[in-house]
């Protein structure tokens, strides 16, 4: 079991990844799958912008446009942004707290495969009669009326991948509470770990609301219930509440880890301790808490009445306070620092004005009376792309460049990285800044075309040109990845030279057991402290001993595959006689493999002390 660096064939590597329970390999799986869905969602975005480039365009039909628009939003949020964030959480968080793995390695793998099969299921709708077409929010009055199986793909696909996300959230919470290295107190945890912690709590309490909403939608569409059917006593607003009780925390689930990544970057490349660390922790927790109190600001025009609107408006504006604290702390971290403008730092510096612009329009939208004017216009589209692209996507690019050497053992090319940044930054503002004005001039969101002579032509063309800049940036990033992987120049523990936290104290990529001996943490920025005292690495907190590791398992794949099969059965139950049998077979596969997992003892294995001594921290093959 402890043979590390063997040459393996393609089949063996594939089998290794299908069965892996190692958080570092699962991170790579999340990165590949999330990256694939990011390209898919980006392609859909390009189709949207091409269709809207000129008035009365017929590049795509109205119906197909609705499908592309729905899948762009759904794919980007659930299948691209979240998994990519999970990739960095998996790759980095256990290393940052000095743990050998996550608390539940088996569940970590299960979470990935559930997400993967849910995403594949959702996207198979393109080939099986049409994709969902009711918008990523899929409001019930619209989605119940949608013909075909598009919405069924949406509801069942998100149900499966949502279960995977929930499992991941619980796993990270327990890992951070129970598995920190000696000396790693809560207030010595790196900001990215704190962000992972708060985000995981948000996932735990937000996703069950979506689960219930999706169940009700599935029951109404496939099993004849009447939750959202007003003629049978139902109420369509229930969906809106559940969707946003989940959906608003969801935007913080996306953006808090982004804040975490930027906090690491500002500190590393300013060569300074993060300014106001404890207020950063406080602000993160407060944003997480307030994030649950504001969902109804998405529903100001639903008719909740002035009292409810006023309460939710004020609660929403209150979030600007902890967010402002963070912005100033980042600025003060750079102040007086010795700054190097590497690719990750460029993204981080560009993030501040971009995200603040999104925050300002957010406060404008939070004012309920004004929201009646902006509602469902391109102003809203501009706002949420400023926060999600300017906040989250910038962080994903920055994080990819920052952590690439830690995940793969080789550095992305800095010149190509900077070209990617410049093109994307220009393209982003070109595309979305003008959309604020399109909204104020009266262009509604989600329309598939517009008429000439209404003053919308130039601005839409500008927006489309910007989208091509972003596409070019992504292509250069892909070229960079290929060139880097082919060259494969190996780097050491701390390739940026200024790493501050524990992940930079071990080889890149780390051995599969992470730490030969658990490190002793003596303060915030543990590795930086040791370096400043002239030491080469961390002092160990334990003698060299046997390390307990979990066994690989194929069961998570099978459990997820069973649900994937069952979802087809549930969906085609009304149309075909094979629906019910397929549903039962799928559930039997899932429950049967859970049963096998339950009754078969799996104690894992031990790496023996002697093997650790021979092998001087050789990196594991990625």
């Amino acid at each position: 079991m402890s043979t590390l660096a063997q040459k393996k064939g393609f089949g063996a590597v594939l089998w290794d990844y299908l069965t892996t329970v190692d958080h570092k390999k699962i991170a790579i799986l999340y990165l590949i799958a999330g990256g694939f869905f990011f390209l898919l969602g980006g392609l859909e975005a390009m189709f949207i912008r091409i269709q809207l480039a000129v008035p009365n365009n017929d590049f795509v039909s109205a119906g197909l446009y609705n499908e592309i628009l729905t899948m762009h939003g759904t794919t980007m949020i659930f299948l691209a942004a979240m998994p990519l964030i999970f990739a960095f959480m998996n790759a980095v968080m256990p290393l940052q707290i000095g743990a050998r793995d996550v608390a539940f390695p088996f569940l970590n793998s299960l979470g990935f495969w559930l997400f993967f099969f849910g995403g594949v299921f959702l996207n198979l709708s393109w080939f099986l009669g049409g994709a969902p077409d009711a918008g990523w929010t899929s409001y019930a009055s619209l989605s119940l009326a949608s013909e075909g199986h598009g919405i069924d793909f949406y509801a069942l696909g998100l149900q499966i991948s949502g279960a995977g996300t929930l499992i991941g959230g619980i796993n990270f919470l327990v890992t951070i509470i129970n598995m920190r290295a000696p000396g790693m107190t809560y207030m010595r945890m790196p900001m990215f770990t704190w962000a992972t912690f708060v985000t995981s709590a948000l996932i735990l309490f937000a996703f069950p609301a979506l689960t219930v909403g999706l169940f009700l939608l599935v029951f109404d569409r496939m099993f004849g219930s009447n939750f959202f059917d007003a003629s049978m006593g139902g109420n369509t607003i229930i969906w809106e509440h559940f969707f946003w009780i989940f959906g608003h925390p969801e935007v913080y689930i996306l953006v808090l880890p982004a804040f975490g990544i930027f906090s690491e970057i500002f500190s590393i490349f300013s060569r300074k301790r993060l300014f106001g660390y404890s207020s950063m922790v406080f602000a993160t927790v407060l944003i997480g808490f307030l994030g649950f109190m504001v969902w109804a600001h998405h529903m100001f025009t639903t008719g909740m009445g002035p009292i409810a609107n006023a309460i939710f408006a004020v609660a929403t504006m209150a979030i600007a306070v902890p967010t402002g604290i963070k912005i100033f702390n980042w600025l003060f971290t750079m102040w007086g620092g010795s700054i190097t403008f590497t690719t990750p730092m460029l993204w981080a510096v560009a993030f501040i004005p971009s995200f603040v612009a999104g925050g300002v329009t957010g406060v404008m939208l939070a004012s309920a009376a004004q929201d009646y004017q902006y509602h469902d216009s391109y102003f809203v589209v501009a706002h949420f792309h400023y926060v999600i692209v300017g906040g989250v996507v910038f962080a994903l690019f920055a994080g990819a460049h920052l952590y690439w050497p830690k995940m793969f053992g080789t550095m992305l090319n800095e010149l190509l990285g900077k070209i990617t940044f410049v093109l994307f930054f220009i393209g982003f503002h070109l595309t979305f800044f003008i959309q604020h004005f399109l909204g104020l001039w009266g262009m509604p969101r989600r329309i598939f075309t517009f008429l000439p002579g209404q003053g919308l032509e130039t601005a839409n063309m500008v927006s489309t040109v910007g989208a091509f800049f972003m596409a070019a940036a992504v292509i250069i990033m892909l070229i960079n990845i290929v060139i880097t992987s082919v060259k494969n120049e190996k780097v050491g523990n701390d390739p940026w030279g200024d790493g501050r936290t524990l992940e930079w104290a071990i080889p890149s990529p780390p051995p599969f057991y992470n730490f030969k001996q658990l490190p002793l943490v003596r303060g915030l920025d543990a590795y930086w402290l040791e370096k400043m005292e002239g030491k080469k690495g961390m002092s160990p907190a334990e003698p060299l001993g046997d390390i307990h590791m979990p066994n690989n398992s194929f069961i998570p794949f099978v459990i997820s595959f069973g649900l994937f099969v069952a979802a087809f059965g549930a969906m085609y139950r009304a149309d075909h006689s094979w629906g019910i049998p397929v549903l039962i077979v799928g559930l039997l596969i899932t429950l049967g493999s859970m049963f096998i997992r339950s009754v078969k003892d799996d104690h894992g294995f031990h790496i023996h002390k002697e093997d650790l001594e021979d092998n001087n921290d050789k990196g594991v093959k990625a």
Partner: protein
Amino acid sequence: MAAEQKMTYETWPASPEKQTLEAKNKFLGFWFFLGGETVLFASLFATYLALKDKVPNSDMALAKDLFEIPLAFIMTMLLLTSSLTSVYAMYQMKNFNFKKMQLWLGITVLLGLGFLGLEIYEFNHYVHEFHHSFTSSAFGSAFYTLVGFHGAHVAFGLLWITTLMIRNSKRGLSLYNAPKFYVASLYWHFIDVVWVFIFTVVYLMGMVG
């Protein structure tokens, strides 16, 4: 302490459910899972309250026509007692008395089966006597979803506890399986708490209009 180690009454620790790191993780992770389940049931309760008595025409049965105290009371007593017997089972587990633990778990399963049987009878009764079904009205959909989700949890809990009892029947208690029994009993208590709310919100509040 290694999980596979053979234990005796003398070496059995005070909290066998949290001795190894795996056990501590399982214990904490399960509490978080129950936190998520709480939100799930809270959402179902909210749906039920929003759709209670919402029927398409006025001659359909409402909550006050459907529910009767005796049946709901017997079901409540069965489930509350099963929670108590699962406490006895955990008491015996902590005393390293495997046989008595199995006995009390067996009684818990029987009480749970009794509850489930009555629930099936109850649903059947509503459908045939009152034409109150999953598809007849929004009220019906919300009622069967809330109470049915709980019933499905009971059924899953019974399968889980039975599997644990059979799997470990020959090999007795160890630090490897003690946390497994413990989280199963936590789950069973959670189901019981949810039922207390269902009894109050659905049945008692339903009776008074």
